[in-house]
């Protein structure tokens, strides 16, 4: 029998979560070491997965299917392709880095690391699931640890932020559940298979309603304007490592749904709503950038910048051309890396200065130069400097959008100028100038912190110089979906 490597990738962190929960309370070092070991093993498993699977085939690889509730057409169905693999890899990588970034967590450490592992299991599950019920379960599984991670280890308004996050996304996902059920019954009520349901053809009105239901579920998660206000609150309160995962991977669950579900399953509704989606995309880009500019809280600024950058994913999906859709997939990964780096660096500054207010900062480059350089690298990556991944993503989205939604290219271009504006302004106030006299002696970057930052910087640069590494994975799948769309 073959080793069920995909199941293993979910079970590994899940088992880790359980074992950590059984460890003695006072053994904090055991707990975090175990979390690190589990996340590293998971990362290795995901790496092996990538070697085993022929990801550029454009077809589902390493599928694992088992009967589950056959009378309802529910099955345990996992699979991987060039679309989901980058997301699984991102989840495994960022969780590992998040564990390292959480090394100093002492308060209820057992629960913390246990939940972090549970979160990883859920995230990987979402990206591997090919059955709607399974997908939905993992989707909800992700909610719970995230809720506690914000609500227990968060900042002063953690209860409010956690509850808002939870209720808002639950609201979205319940509506998505209605969409799943509508799709299930609309297709004859025989299967919950994501792939099989994508084969069917559905009437206009069914497509429309299912589209709306899914859209709300996914839009809350991405988040799409005007469903985005939970995000800044959640980020401001969340601890650093949790913010890295929230921006790095959680937001991608929503975007992933557009590629995995919306495009293949509801092509007519997608085509019909594409211009509207594109408009929402550029609204995200410009609105997010403007809101980011006005923030004094560094973390809130980065949170709004996430909203802005996720707009490029939406715009790329809406353009429905290979360059744009692949650019959108690329942006998911790229933003995952860059936003994690940004949040991590903000955390570095906060632990040293005990403030995140831009107006109270200054001279970081003088006081803690290595931290300052990393923040500058992250900011330039975020504003789309060529040679780093963000440029490739946004460039490809604009490249593909020019053919179909031309006016939006100009608005998105305006957004890129605004992005450069707020990031440069931030750097001017945080990095340059003179450090406040009140700061005492603070240590510069520690080795363990470099371990977290370096892989992210390297990933952004490698993908920025040679994006084919990722684009060659996504393009067969994306092009297959778009060919189907063209046929409709």
């Amino acid at each position: 029998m073959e080793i069920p490597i995909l199941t293993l990738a979910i079970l590994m962190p899940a088992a880790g979560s359980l074992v950590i929960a059984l460890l003695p309370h006072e053994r904090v070092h055991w707990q975090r070491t175990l979390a690190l070991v589990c996340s590293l093993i998971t990362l290795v498993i995901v790496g092996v997965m990538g070697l085993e699977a022929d990801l550029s085939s454009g077809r589902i690889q390493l599928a694992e299917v088992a009967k589950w509730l056959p009378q309802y057409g529910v099955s345990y169905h996992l699979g991987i392709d060039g679309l989901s693999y980058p997301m699984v890899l991102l989840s495994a990588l960022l969780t590992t880095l998040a564990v390292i970034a959480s090394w100093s967590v002492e308060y209820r450490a057992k629960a913390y690391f246990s939940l972090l592992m549970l979160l990883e299991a859920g995230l990987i599950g979402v990206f591997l699931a090919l059955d709607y019920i399974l997908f939905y379960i993992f989707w909800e599984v992700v909610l719970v640890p995230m809720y506690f991670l914000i609500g227990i280890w968060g900042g002063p308004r953690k209860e409010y932020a956690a509850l808002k996050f939870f209720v808002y996304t639950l609201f979205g996902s319940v509506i998505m559940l209605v969409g799943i059920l509508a799709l299930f019954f609309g297709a004859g009520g025989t299967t919950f298979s994501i792939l099989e349901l994508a084969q069917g053809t559905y009437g206009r009105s069914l497509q429309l309603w299912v589209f709306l239901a899914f859209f709300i579920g996914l839009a809350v998660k991405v988040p799409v304007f005007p469903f985005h206000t939970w995000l800044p609150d959640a980020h401001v309160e969340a601890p650093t490592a949790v913010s890295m995962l929230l921006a790095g991977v959680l937001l991608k669950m929503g975007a992933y749904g557009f590629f995995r579900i919306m495009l293949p399953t509801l092509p007519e509704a997608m085509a019909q709503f594409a211009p509207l989606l594109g408009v929402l995309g550029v609204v995200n880009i410009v609105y997010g950038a403007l809101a980011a500019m006005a923030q004094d809280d560094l973390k809130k600024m980065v949170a709004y910048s996430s909203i802005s950058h996720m707009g490029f994913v939406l715009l790329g999906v809406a353009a429905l051309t290979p360059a744009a859709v692949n650019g959108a997939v690329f942006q998911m990964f790229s933003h995952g890396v860059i936003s994690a780096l940004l949040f991590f660096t903000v955390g570095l500054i906060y632990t040293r200065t005990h403030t995140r207010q831009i107006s109270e900062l200054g001279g970081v480059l003088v006081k803690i130069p290595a931290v300052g350089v990393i923040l500058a690298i992250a900011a330039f990556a975020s504003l789309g400097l060529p040679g780093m991944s963000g440029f490739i993503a946004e460039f490809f989205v604009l490249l593909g959008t020019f053919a179909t939604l031309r006016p939006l290219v100009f608005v998105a271009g305006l957004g890129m100028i605004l992005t450069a504006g707020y990031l440069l302004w931030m750097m001017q106030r945080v990095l340059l100038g003179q450090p406040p006299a009140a700061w005492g002696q603070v240590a510069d970057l520690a080795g363990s912190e470099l371990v977290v930052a370096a892989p992210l910087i390297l990933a952004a640069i490698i993908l920025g110089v040679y994006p084919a590494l990722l684009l060659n994975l996504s393009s067969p799948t994306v092009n297959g979906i778009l060919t189907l769309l063209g046929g409709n």
Partner: protein
Amino acid sequence: MFTLAWLIPVFPALAWLIIGLSGKEMQNTGSQLAIPAVVVSLVCSVITLVQVAGGAQPETSWTWLEWPGFAISFGLQVDPLSAMMLVVVSLVSTLVQVYSLGYMAGDGHYSRYYANLSLFTAAMLTLVMADNYLLLLMAWEIVGLCSYLLIGHYFQNSGVPQAANKAFLTTRVGDIGLIIALAALFAGTGTFSFSEVFALAESGGIAQSTLVWITIGLFLGAAGKSAQLPFQVWLPDAMAGPTPVSALIHAATMVAAGVYLIARSLPLYLAVPEVMQLIAWVGGLTALLAAAVGLVVHDIKKVLAYSTISQLGYMMLGLGVGAYYPGVFHLMTHAFFKALLFLAAGSVIHAVHTQDMRRMGGLAKRLPYTSAAFLIGALALAGVYPFAGFYSKDSILAEVYLSGHRVLFWLGILAAVITAFYITRAVVLTFWHRPRSEAAAEAHESGPVMTVPLVILSLLALSAGWLGAEFAGNLLPRFLGSEVHHTDAVHRMVTLVASLAAMLGIGSALAFYHFRWFDPQRMAQRFSRLHRILQQAYGFDALYMRVFVQGTISLSEQVSRFDLNVIDKFVNWVGSATRSLAMGIAKLDRVLIDGFVVGMGTGLDLAGEKVRRWQSGQIANYLLSLVWAVLISILTFKIFG
């Protein structure tokens, strides 16, 4: 054929990498690695130039991205234009880096300075060798980053970060045009390769409307980089960087990248004469308006900055009337004489610790090499025979005359008068008469690391124009594969008019500042309105500050308030309304819900049994997860509500 061309950008790139990664260990070194690297690049560039002159055209390319029906290759190519640019860039970069040994000695961030210069050199060399628009764009942005980093070198000084930001952002606006041009190019042709795009353009394979998008977009990028109207505002502020940086990046090379881009893309522009007209007018107006500001500023670097904007305008004017060779010719001569002027100015600033010409004077005696160098640069800039600028500026003006744009021709002549005037003024104020400050009276000439580059550049500022002269066999135009259109009669006439213009400018500046026949201050008072407009550089800065900077910030604050007070308030209202409703229901059904919670608690105790049932696969886990969700929401409402 064996070629060293691909190695040219590699050496400075390696130098950057090593200096950058070695961090603190390289403190106060860096130059030991950076200078040999750029010297090797220079040697390779010269060898390549000779090979290209011999008919070689090195090219290489590799696949960067390949999809079905879609491929992007990255390649480097060296044609005559690239070969010339390679030598200009590596030569000026070498001289500037050697000069910096003296100028930057004792700087606290010496190795960072050399790392940034190395990265800049590598990217600039890549830019001029790229065989396609995408690689060019990427190198283009990296040189922009280096410009930002080097302008911000003294970032702890007030005003410096703002200047760096302004440079990056203003050029960024133009770069969005460049990105849009590439998107249009891709949509219209499916390729970024120069040769493929130009072949398509010549065969009429690109729709006219697409061509308009492409050419306007490219020009926006070029105008941003080359500080043409209305993007010129960033370059004077960029003088906040160290003076050698101003010489290399903000005079000789990077700011000329816009001119290079248009020259490179001329086959596309020839198909859209309307856009050519636009370029010619923007160039001509920039040449005149920027030169005029040079009349009133007191900061010696700002005089040179406005002069650079103005000279880049000349190049654009030339390209706008389709004069490929003259535009490129002037790019080369200007690179040498303007780098010379900046380095000489740097030597002055190094000696007197001020940039204000009112606190200088009499330096000719104290700084003999520097003042001779500056004078040679000034003569070249003013277009005096037989200095470099004479040949290249004349060839532009002759082509403008021949193209029939009479207004633009006289605009160019007027700008030439003003140019000669402001640079003569700078020479007199800086070097002649008595010292006007203690520092000027006690100034000392810089050491040989600074004066030797001045001597080499002086020779080039004198002789570079001869490459385009008849007595030298029209070497450069033949190398660039360009014919000289103008007849002898036209050429003689233009030469005469332009030389008269230079004499007029020099003569009247001498009358004002040397002989003092007229009082410049009384002139300023008589034309106070004009004087004020020039001093404010036509008010672009104030306008942009009010409209774009403050406008955007105030808009962003409004958006943020809207986000908080409208959208988020609505979300919270829905939340609390729902909660009130739930509380009402909860009161009615307290017993029921309590029972539910207690029941769940019991359920959790039976975990072992559950696991068993899970394995059998017959329990609705799905339902369980929903129950979890409901349970947690109820609990949280109870705890936090």
